[in-house]
Each structure stands twice: as C-alpha cells, then as structure tokens.
C-alpha cells in the first residue's frame, strides 16, 4: 500500500475536535483518522488545545446536589452499547454509519453503484462503487465535497487518490473522477449540499437517486 498523500485540512480536524462539523463530514474525518496516524496526532493536538481552553474557562456554579447525584450512579450497571469493529475495507466509523450491515448497493448505470448512508439538512453521506476505468458522471456541486478512498484509487484533474486519501473539492471544481486500473474503487463521499450533475439526463435522475 502506498502512503497516504492527501490528508484532511487542519481546520477540519479542529472543527471535528470542537464538534462543529456537519455529520457527513464528521464521519469522513473519523474514518480518515482511523486510517492515518498523522491526522490522528493532529486531531489529538487540537483536543489538547480544546482541553487547555476548557481548563482555563471560569466555569458555572453547580447546584448543590449534583456531585452526590453523580457519585450515586458510579456503580450503576451499564448497558453495553454495540461497538462496531472494522470489517474488511470498512473502518469502524463506516461500519457504524451502516449500523453494522453490509453495503446495500443501488445501481446508477455504467456499473457505478452507491449506498446512501444519510441525506438530510446537514448534507449527504454515501458509499460509491466505481468499476476500474469507469468515470463517475461529470458533476459539479454546491458547497464542499469530501471523498475518501477505501479501496482501489481514482484520478481526476487534481491528481491521483489512493486508499486513505481524501479529496476536498469546492464548488468551483468541475471534475471527472475516474477509477484507475485494478480493484473497483470504493469511496466514502460527503457533501454539505446536494450534488448536481452537469449532463442533462443525470440531473433529471437526481431527485430519484437523491444525489
């Protein structure tokens, strides 16, 4: 495996630490950090900065009984929440986003498939499956799009992206990601706004596929 060359922007790690990222982006960041020690160290550095800020704040007076209330719960039996483990090419946060199931691929044509994991006011999060040599339909998008490679690789005008790499595309980028030779390319893609396709037909299909 080649080293990760395209990392997440530092400001996004800071925003993740602070809890300020829309959900779809937060999942991409959590997944990339699970694959990249440099970004994990950078995230923990931001958490250190957050800890210092927390430690330096004045604080609010507590109601008298809060401490006893908390101490009274220390021995409570706690239900084990399911912890999702990495499964194959899917790091734990992606498995959690699928609630532990396998991907449910829906064909988009030309062998391209997707599984929408979430789509709401915060944006959309989906898995994309692109057969080698195949292009994702040319599309622009409003807002920002993050694409993290989980298997194979893709290339577009900005470069080549392999496993663990993240492409950050803003709305000015009209790009045609094409899967490279080898394994089909599987990506986790997040937007903070719906995608729009450049070609007429896919745009008509957009409401149907919710992309």
């Amino acid at each position: 495996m080649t080293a990760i060359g395209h990392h997440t922007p530092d400001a996004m790690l800071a925003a993740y630490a602070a809890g300020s990222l829309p959900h779809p982006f937060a999942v991409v960041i959590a997944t990339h950090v699970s694959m990249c020690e440099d970004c994990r160290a950078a995230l923990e550095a931001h958490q250190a900065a957050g800890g210092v800020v927390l430690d330096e704040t004045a604080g609010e007076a507590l109601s008298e009984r809060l401490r006893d209330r908390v101490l009274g719960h220390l021995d409570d039996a706690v239900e084990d929440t399911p912890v999702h483990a990495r499964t194959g090419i899917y790091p734990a946060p992606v498995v959690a986003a699928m609630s532990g199931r396998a991907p449910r691929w829906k064909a988009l044509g030309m062998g391209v498939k997707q599984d929408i994991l979430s789509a709401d006011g915060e944006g959309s999060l989906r898995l994309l499956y692109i057969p080698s040599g195949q292009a994702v339909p040319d599309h622009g998008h409003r807002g920002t799009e993050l694409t993290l490679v989980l298997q194979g690789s893709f290339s577009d005008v900005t470069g080549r992206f392999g496993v663990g790499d993240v492409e950050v595309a803003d709305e000015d980028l009209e790009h045609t990601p094409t899967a490279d030779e080898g394994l089909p390319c599987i990506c986790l893609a997040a937007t903070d706004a719906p995608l729009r396709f450049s070609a007429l037909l896919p745009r008509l299909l957009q409401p149907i596929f919710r992309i």
Partner: protein
Amino acid sequence: MARIEAMITLEIGIARSGRPPSAAVVTRTLRKERTIPTPSEQTGWMIAVRDRRDRAAFCALFDHFAPRLKGFVMRSGTTAAEAEDIVQDVMLSVWRKAHLFDPHRAEASSWIYQIARNRQIDIIRKARRLVPEELAEPPGTEPDPAQIVAVEQETGKLRAALRRLKGEQREVIEKAYLGELSHQEIANQTGLPLGTIKSRIRLGMQRLRHELKDLEE
C-alpha cells in the same frame, strides 16, 4: 517540576511493585497544597481512577472539571438544568471509559474535553457520534515517564501560548474550541502553534503500536 517527578516516581513504583500506595493519601496531600490543580495532578487523578477506581480522585476531577464543563455546555445555548444533565453524563463517562485514558498521548483536560464533545453531540443528535477507532493501551503496559512528562510540557507550552494571545485573538480561539464557530470560520483563523505537541503525541502512538505488536506475538 518536583511535583511531576513525584508523580512519575509514584507511577513507576506502582508498575514495579504492583502494590499501589494509598491513593487517598496521595490525593489528600495534593489537595491540601494547592487549590488550583496542576495538569500533572489532574493526570494523576485520572490514572488513580483508571487503575484503582479511586473515588477520592474522581471527586477531585469532578470539583475541578464539572463547573467548567457546565459553562462549556451552556455556551452552545443549553439551559442550566439541561447542562447539569450533560455534565452528569460526561462525568459518568469519564468514570466508565477511564480504561481508555492514555497519559502518553493526552492530559486529563484534553481527554475530558473530547468526551464532553462526543457526549454532547450524542445527546443533540439523539444517536451515537461516530468516532475514530480507539487505540487503547493494553492492560499492564509499563508507563514511560519521559513521554508522559513530554506531553505535559508540550501542553504547558500550548497553555502559555493561549495566555499570551491578545484579547480578541484569544476570544476567537476560545470560540473555535468551545464550538461557537463554523468550520468555514475556523478555516479563516490562524490557530495555536500545534507542531511540537503533534510530534509528541505521534511518539506516544508509536510506543502504543509497539506494545500492541508485542501483545500479538
């Protein structure tokens, strides 16, 4: 510095003998001497909670962090009563997840900050926040005092850098880490210098990776 060394000596003593000295005594001594706990005291309390389920140490952490957590949570518009529910939830998570605390990578304040963020988002979203895979320290791992001290020193430098910032600049950094800026707004700011602490944390991870490898062999 003497205090840090004392704590580290204590840690090594525990690791070697397997017999912890009375943590309650240690905690009481620390509390008598200082009203504002130093980061290494906080880390010592976290370790006492993690390794010995020490309630006195937990109370010390509570007294320091709970009011700050309440203020932190209220900054995002939560009412005082709801904020206390979240503080309760966060402090119980600190108690229950203590086995994941690793002083080679984080001070107590960093770790508690992260738990608070995750729990608050869980509650707002009514679903568990998706977090990175854990890199937990295997039980029985020998502490590396030099690494623990290094992380504390680097965090101390961050603290000093924050204190040096002028009013408005400092306010922006506080707002960013307390969750009051959008990610676009954060992108437009120049942050604190994180370079050296990042490489220290990276070393802590490498150490952990070696430990995990030994465990598999």
